[in-house]
């Protein structure tokens, strides 16, 4: 029997795709395996051990940096999601109005500029303010993270809103719901998956940031990624593998959640 002609087949594409997926995961898998290495060098395998996780757990610098990362990440994620939700409501499902294009450009601006440039800019700006006010807390990091998280939080919220039929709110208004009630009862519950997705995205983005944090942070304000960067530059111990593995696990958990939340359609 002759094989059916497959219209979707392209020679070699499947092989390249397979290679891509293997190449994407292989280094990560190796990294995770070596986190459980008993040897103190990453070039030999000395048997299975959890000692590097233990040593990371007892390293106060690591714990401090982790807590700081979570602190900054959660505040920045919540703030940026609230602001992004409001901005998304203001910029979707409307006829063009004066300033709409400006808003799109402004909200997406942090995505358009290489991080290094934003980092330098914030370094200059915040160092001035630090001299001026004397304040040198993590407020600067929170502000910077909130700013660059807004466009990321904005993405899924806006996408969700644009797919939401304005007729539903019209129907609510037709059924005597005031604009506020229509928002509470119709818009918000339907938008909720988008908002959650935005929140998780913002949190992951904040947690991952190296460059801007590296430039903005004052002494003793390392986040987990900037701490790791410092360690990697100094030389590698399997402890970094252990930290990376824990970090990875967290990211995967959040992404998994994000994936299901943002894919949910009703």
């Amino acid at each position, binding site marked *: 029997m002759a094989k059916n002609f497959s*219209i*979707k*087949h*392209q*020679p070699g*594409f*499947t092989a*390249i*795709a397979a290679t*891509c*997926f293997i190449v*994407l995961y292989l*280094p990560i898998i190796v*990294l995770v395996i070596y986190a459980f290495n008993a040897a103190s*060098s*990453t*070039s030999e395998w000395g048997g299975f051990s959890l000692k590097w996780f233990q040593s990371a757990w007892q390293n106060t610098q690591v714990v401090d940096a982790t807590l700081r990362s979570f602190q900054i990440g959660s505040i920045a994620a919540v703030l*940026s999601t609230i602001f992004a939700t*409001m*901005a998304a*409501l*203001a*910029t979707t499902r409307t006829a063009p109005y004066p*300033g709409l294009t400006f808003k799109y450009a402004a*909200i997406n*601006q942090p995505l*358009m*500029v*290489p*991080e*290094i*440039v934003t980092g*330098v*800019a*914030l370094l*200059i*700006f*915040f160092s001035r303010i630090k001299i001026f006010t004397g304040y040198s807390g993590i407020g600067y990091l929170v502000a*910077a993270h*909130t*700013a*660059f998280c*807004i466009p990321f939080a904005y993405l899924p919220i806006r996408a969700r809103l644009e797919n939401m039929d304005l007729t539903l709110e019209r129907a609510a208004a037709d059924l005597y719901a005031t604009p506020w009630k229509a928002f509470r009862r119709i818009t918000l519950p339907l938008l909720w998956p988008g908002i959650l997705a935005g929140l998780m*995205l913002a949190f*992951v983005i904040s947690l*991952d940031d*190296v*460059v801007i944090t590296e430039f903005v942070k004052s002494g003793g304000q390392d986040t987990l*990624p900037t701490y*790791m*960067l410092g360690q*990697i530059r100094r030389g590698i111990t399997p402890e*970094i593998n252990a930290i*990376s593995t824990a*970090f*990875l696990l967290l990211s*995967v958990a959040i*992404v998994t959640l994000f*994936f299901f939340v943002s*894919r949910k359609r009703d």
Partner: protein
Amino acid sequence: MATAEEVAKAVERRDVRDRWLLSAPALLVIFLAATGPLLIVLVYSFLTPGSYGDVKWQFSPEAWIAVFLERDIFDDTLSIAAAHVTIFLRSIKLSVVTTIATLVLGFPTAYFMATRSEKTRDLWLFLITIPFWTNLLIRTFAVLQIIRNEGIINTILLKLGIISAPIQILYTDTAILIGMAYVYLPLMVLPIYASMEKLDFRLVEAGYDLYASRFQVLRRIIFPLVKPGVIAGSILVFIPALGAYVTPSVLGGGKNMMLSNLIELQFGQGRNWPLGSALSIAVMIIVMVALLAYVRNAGKSGVRHG
């Protein structure tokens, strides 16, 4: 009582006002902690460096001159700053090659994903999304462990007797290239996949029906239709690659600088904030040119998805 027309106008005015109020917090935060400071960078690039970092409030074009030129300490003559030019060219070259490499790998991958059944498609998307949201530093670190002299590539090659001494990949341009292609690959795949997913495969059928070969279908039908995704992916890879900081820092080992390392240097040991500012603006100008080319191209291509 107001007439319907007056009410309509009032409603519209209130709507626009509310929309400004709603977007105000986001705009304000972005202005204060992203856009505004960029303007200060521009100002700083025209000032004189301070002795211990920062600046003196004195106008000077020196920083801009120093972007590409060197002033001789003894006779004040200007010559091309070979070091800077090299770094600019290396950054642009590495970014372009990274973009091409990710496109060559990413296009078939996106195609493969888009041609799976509806259900498995989500799984593949999930698999490409995980590295995308995994910390870039961790992924770079993972690459470092693979390619270093004691890494598994060299170890396996040595064990198999193919090589007698480890190949030095780490701390070379190749390392930076491998690292950037690795970390930015999902950025290329995702937008192409987004375009590809919406591709109507009946058009492909029509192409075959009209005697096109597989390659002709790919070139004349599929590629033009997903071009917006390809352009978006290229931009998404090119911009961060040009400003890449982590990957060259970790894999280039500080010897093979890229633009970001050069800029960082001016704010650290270099103590030349105006030059760092001018270099930053220069990077932004390159990015803007790339973006403009994208916008013009996207406008011309005519095919729109969603």
